């Protein structure tokens, strides 16, 4: 299948998301420029240019920190999922803010240089052997290149063109970019700032990002299983409209959904960006990915027309109230009759929130910047 460019499909949720984000960025810059002169040190008077540079630089760092927090936070607590929905736009705006910071720096430091500003930037300071006065700009340049690369490839065209595994690996470059930003600030602003607030905020930010990722990574994956039929769990543990995720040795996990008294199993990987389908819900009779709202039919794993994505399906069997799974995947799009649940005695299952919300419009243009 060839990759085809599809323009960004705006919807009301995306517009609200972007307007709120833009307003927050504007408010931050305004408040920073208003407050910064009140905290300037007597030995380091803050001019307008430097204040603007610091305002956009600190804003980009905080936005980047938030982007990196959204993924693990949503994994630990579903209430953060709405933030994940349009994270790609978050990333693009962060890149724009970082570029404004870089532009302000070039303007201010090299306006009067006889050299080209970019030449002056790269050749002005070559004290790589010193800690004080280390050319911290190189870390900023590297981080900026990473951000621009990720923003430029965040559209779904690139996701399809590069394939999800390659695209995902490329976007893990954000971790190197973030580390580079931390080094940029550590060898730059932290060396000259006399205000302890910067060091405190930096420490809290990096601790928050790291702790959230480690905590999300420690989340238990599930019960051990054995081939050919494997024990997937108790049927009562699957809430109506929700799924359990069953790990399969040496293969991707399988998500088993319960909907209107039937069970269906598909791969846990969304065909869009390998999102965790098992953490999603059944909305309007379709499995709905928690990341970008891509939808698939329960019986055959196919996205409803006009979309063409397909998931691998799996066979299921019930032994009493134990769900058994055949971990060998069927070809994507294979129809498997949903397994009716025949329960002895009252069903202890608590109803989930499925089918109560409106249809989730598949977010077919949205990629994501970051993890």
């Amino acid at each position, binding site marked *: 299948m060839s990759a085809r460019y599809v323009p960004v499909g705006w919807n009301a949720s995306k517009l609200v998301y972007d307007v709120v984000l833009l307003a927050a960025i504007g408010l931050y810059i305004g408040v920073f420029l208003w407050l910064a002169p009140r905290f300037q040190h*007597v*030995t*380091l*008077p803050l001019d307008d240019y430097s204040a603007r540079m610091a305002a956009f630089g600190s804003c980009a760092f905080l936005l980047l920190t938030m982007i990196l927090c959204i993924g693990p936070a949503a994994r630990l607590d579903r209430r953060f999922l709405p933030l994940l929905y349009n994270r790609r736009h978050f990333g693009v705006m962060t890149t724009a803010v970082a570029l404004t910071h870089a532009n302000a720096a070039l303007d201010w430091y090299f306006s009067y240089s006889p050299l080209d500003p970019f030449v002056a930037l790269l050749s002005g300071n070559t004290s790589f052997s010193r*800690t*004080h006065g280390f050319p911290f700009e190189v870390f900023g340049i590297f981080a900026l290149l990473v951000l621009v690369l990720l923003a430029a490839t965040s559209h779904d065209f690139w996701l399809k063109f590069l394939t999800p*595994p390659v695209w*995902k*690996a490329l976007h*893990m470059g954000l*971790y190197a970019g*973030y*580390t580079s930003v*931390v*080094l940029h600030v*550590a*060898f730059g602003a*932290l*060396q*000259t700032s006399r205000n302890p607030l910067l*060091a405190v905020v*930096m*420490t809290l930010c*990096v*601790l928050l*990002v*790291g*702790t959230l*990722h*480690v905590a999300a*990574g420690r989340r238990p994956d599930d019960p051990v299983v054995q081939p050919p039929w494997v024990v997937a769990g108790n049927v009562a543990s699957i809430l109506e409209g929700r799924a359990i995720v069953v790990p399969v040795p040496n293969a*991707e996990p399988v998500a088993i959904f319960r909907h209107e008294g039937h069970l269906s199993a598909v791969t846990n*990987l969304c065909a869009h960006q*390998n*999102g*965790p389908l098992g953490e999603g819900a059944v909305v309007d009779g379709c499995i709905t990915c928690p990341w970008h709202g891509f939808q698939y039919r329960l019986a055959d794993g196919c996205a409803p027309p006009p979309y063409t994505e397909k998931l691998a399906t799996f066979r299921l069997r019930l032994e009493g109230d134990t769900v058994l799974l055949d971990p060998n995947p069927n070809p994507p799009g294979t129809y498997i009759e949903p397994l009716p649940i025949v329960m002895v005695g009252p069903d202890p299952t608590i109803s989930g929130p499925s089918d109560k919300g409106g249809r989730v419009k598949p977010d077919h243009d949205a990629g994501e910047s970051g*993890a």
Partner: protein
Amino acid sequence: MRLGHRRAHRWIWRVLVVLLPAIVLGAVAIRPSGPLEAPAIRLSPP
């Protein structure tokens, strides 16, 4: 997310959760103390 990516994520963040705070705290520890630049001297007009 694929198993390989998830494992990579876990390892990367196990390193970064230590490395990033160490960079910040190390930078604070090595920064020079005292004023970096002399205050601007303003002469009164003759």
